[in-house]
């Protein structure tokens, strides 16, 4: 395949490092050297705005609410309503984060945080919005910093300690879940530690607990102070010591780099490239920004074989569509519906291993729904699909009844602006270069042109072509 044009390179960079580009962003960036564009992406991600749906002092856990019910402070209906409020706040948190992804300048940070959400997968438990809010902000704040800081912070998050049962990990009754997942899924990967290491590490993590207010606490009384032997070293280790040992192990750099490569570059990993990146990542003291910059500036990143190789996750698809066309939902709820139907609901990963990704996103029904999605969002076409309920009575309010339409506002004016210079015959290819990873084939062009009607105004024509281009299977790829 030929080398990519400058515009293709830029489009691809925005698609992978962010959630795609608007036509204006693309036009502006294409005029600059790639190095400068990359630097600007990092610059734009310097700051982070906190997600906020609940103040710490307002939060009441389900347990506390049930206590108040027993004490007679709440009646049954009030209890039900408060528990429901909590679940709704987790939903609001989801939507707030989605808005940040779609509209914030710090798109690289949000994309990286989405990656970490799948890596340090954690699921909303007990409908506690405060814990999920803290967890989300922790991965967003540390998304581009040092892995050591991120790993330590996320491991001490109440949401994570709760999800991985460390509250039940006590001196006389160890629970190994937390220690196992920290090694298997967060740092080393399966096969790079022994069962003995897990048993001993679990002892080191005893006492890592949290308060109902969402504070990490180390409870000495339930910590096992005895000597532990882990990775051949013996000492009275605590949790922090285990995290340090895991970072010392180069396998952690290899494991994480490989996962980043598969998410940002190609599902099929190039061993030589990953080895070199892992080496550098380790030497840099696990500097995430440094690693990502190296990837985005590497020549091989722009190899034709990587372009279009990534299947968008449902969140990438939805956020990307919103970003490119400046879409606002009149009512945000349908965005939960889309996530549920396509199998990626923020704060509800399927398990601690996160979303499997890649081809797993696509089957007959999800592909048809994805191809129809632009019509739902841009043309308010009737939606007749219903997602499955997940069995949990507490998440039912995330469900939505079928047979409705999405109402949205689309910023067509800005999108159309970029095409004022394109002639009528060039128009379709100009839009395609903004939206798709590959140029259109002649037969595709014919099929798409057949969607337009004679007598359409230019804006109408652009809108018809855009919706049709976004419905192509190729739009599922970056």
């Amino acid at each position, binding site marked *: 395949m030929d080398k990519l044009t400058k515009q293709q390179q830029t489009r691809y960079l925005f698609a992978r490092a962010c959630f795609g580009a608007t036509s204006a962003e693309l036009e502006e960036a294409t005029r600059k050297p790639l190095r400068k564009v990359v630097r600007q992406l990092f610059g734009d991600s310097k700051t982070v705005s906190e997600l906020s749906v609940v103040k710490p002092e307002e939060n009441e856990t389900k347990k506390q609410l049930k206590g108040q019910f027993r004490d007679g402070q709440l009646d049954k209906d009030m209890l039900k309503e408060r528990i429901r409020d909590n679940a709704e706040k987790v939903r609001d948190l989801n939507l707030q984060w989605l808005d940040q992804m779609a509209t914030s300048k710090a798109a690289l940070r949000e994309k990286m945080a989405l990656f970490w959400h799948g890596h340090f997968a954690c699921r909303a438990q007990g409908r506690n919005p405060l814990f999920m809010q803290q967890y989300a902000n922790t991965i967003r704040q540390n998304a581009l910093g040092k892995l050591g800081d991120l790993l330590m912070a996320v491991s001490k998050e109440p949401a994570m300690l709760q999800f991985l049962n460390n509250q039940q990990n006590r001196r006389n009754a160890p629970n190994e879940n937390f220690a196992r997942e920290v090694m298997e899924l967060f740092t080393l990967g399966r096969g790079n530690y022994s069962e003995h290491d897990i048993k001993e590490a679990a002892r080191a993590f005893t006492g890592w607990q949290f308060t109902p207010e969402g504070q990490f606490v180390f409870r000495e009384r339930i910590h096992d102070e005895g000597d532990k032997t882990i990775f051949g070293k013996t000492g009275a280790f605590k949790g922090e010591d285990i995290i340090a040992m895991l970072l010392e192990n180069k396998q952690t750099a290899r494991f994480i780099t490989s996962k980043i490569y598969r998410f940002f570059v190609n599902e099929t990993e190039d061993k030589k490239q990953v080895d070199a990146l892992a080496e550098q990542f380790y030497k840099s003291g696990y500097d995430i920004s440094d690693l990502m910059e190296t990837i985005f500036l590497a020549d091989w990143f722009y190899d034709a*074989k990587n372009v279009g190789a990534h299947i968008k996750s449902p969140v990438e698809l939805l956020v990307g569509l919103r970003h490119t066309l400046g879409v606002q939902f009149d009512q945000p709820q349908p965005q939960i519906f889309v996530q549920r139907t396509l199998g990626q609901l923020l704060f509800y990963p*399927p398990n601690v291993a996160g979303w499997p990704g890649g*081809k797993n996103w696509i*089957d*007959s029904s999800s592909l048809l729904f994805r191809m129809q999605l632009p019509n739902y969002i841009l043309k308010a076409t009737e939606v007749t*699909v219903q997602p499955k309920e*997940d069995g949990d*009575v507490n998440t039912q309010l995330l469900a939505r009844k079928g047979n409705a339409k999405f109402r949205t506002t689309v910023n067509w004016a800005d999108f159309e602006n970029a095409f004022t210079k394109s002639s009528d015959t060039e128009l379709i290819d100009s839009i395609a270069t903004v939206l798709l990873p590959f140029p259109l084939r002649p037969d595709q062009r014919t*099929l798409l042109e057949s969607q337009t009607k004679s007598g359409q105004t230019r804006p109408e024509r652009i809108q018809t072509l855009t919706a049709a281009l976004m419905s192509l299977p*190729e739009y599922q790829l970056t």
Partner: protein
Amino acid sequence: MNRRNFIKQSAFTTAGTMLIPHFLKAYESQMLGKGPASNGKILVVVQLSGGNDGLNTVVPYRNDIYYRERPTIAIKPEKVLQLNDEIGLHPAMGPLKALYDEGLLTVINNVGYPNPDRSHFRSMDIWQTASDSDKYVNTGWVGRYLDASCAGKAQQPFRTIEVDDTLSLAMKGSSLNGLAVVDPKKLYNQTRSGFVTGLGKEKAADKGMHEPESVAYLYKTLAETVSSADYVYDKVSRTSRAVSGAPSSTLLTTYPNHELGNRLKTVSQLIQSGVETSVYYVSISGFDTHINQPGQQERLLGQYAEAVGAFMTDLKTAGRQNDVLLMTFSEFGRRVKQNASNGTDHGTANNVFLIGGGLPSRRVLNEAPNLAKLTDGDLTYSVDFRQIYATLLHDYLGADDVAILGRKFDGIKFV
């Protein structure tokens, strides 16, 4: 939405020529010619989502511990539909009792797995992937059955059908996924837009061009979906016309008008139209009964029994009762002790029902739950659910259970 509305609303109204995809016709006839060998047996899986309370479904009506631990929600002995002198069915399950009396129902008690997980999504994952509880697997057991039965042959997603809008993990294989169909006509209409078929057509004409595997995968999935939708709809509409000219007239039984009733009706329709599908998957939810369990569970079990009763009657009339085996499970049972809200919380082992399929007559396969010997207040499992899968795959469907489940599980003699 009917076809005309769909096309009107869709952006993809297009010239009539696009509506006849030649390559898809070729693809389809190729598929129909070389189907994988099948022994003609059909498995229907019914999933009760939310963790059905098995103790109030198959009731140990002579057990004092049961009545002691459930003072307000236990089913009274005189109401129970007795299966033997230890256990009986919930009173709302009359049609199921009738199936038992006909010799069509097998009950397996104490089904579970080692180190049970009490979260819905995780436990459902484990049942759907057939993995150990500490491993994460991205393919489902029915999906892997599909992989195995289509290996080296034409790709036929419709060999396993889920009657739903979206596909469960159970139905996802590593190279093939099952097909999700709620209504064959609706799916057919969705794939008949000129745009979708046009894409399939132009892609087929495009030869030898370099493209990433991801593009090929999307177009392959699309082509399989279009041709499967076409095949299924064609079969269904042809049979309904042949019988009397009116749609759905293959069905000789009246089905209850609720979701499960409608979905089992669709399954029957597909079976009777001769669609070559070996496994159907259907689910019904609402079993997460933490509060006020009695009324809710009664309603759901009533719907279940009614729908299954109608389904089996329908198959009997059509002479297909012995070819179709219906299995019902839930991701976990519930705690033995009721909670303070007239409900039950998440537990572990549960019962599994097998209905029809030409199984030996009328039985309760193993011992009733031992309420005196609990594990952390929960029932102790004695049958690994994967033993049931292994038996269904090997003895019933004639498939390679070890390849599909990843290892050998001891079969149970129920086939």
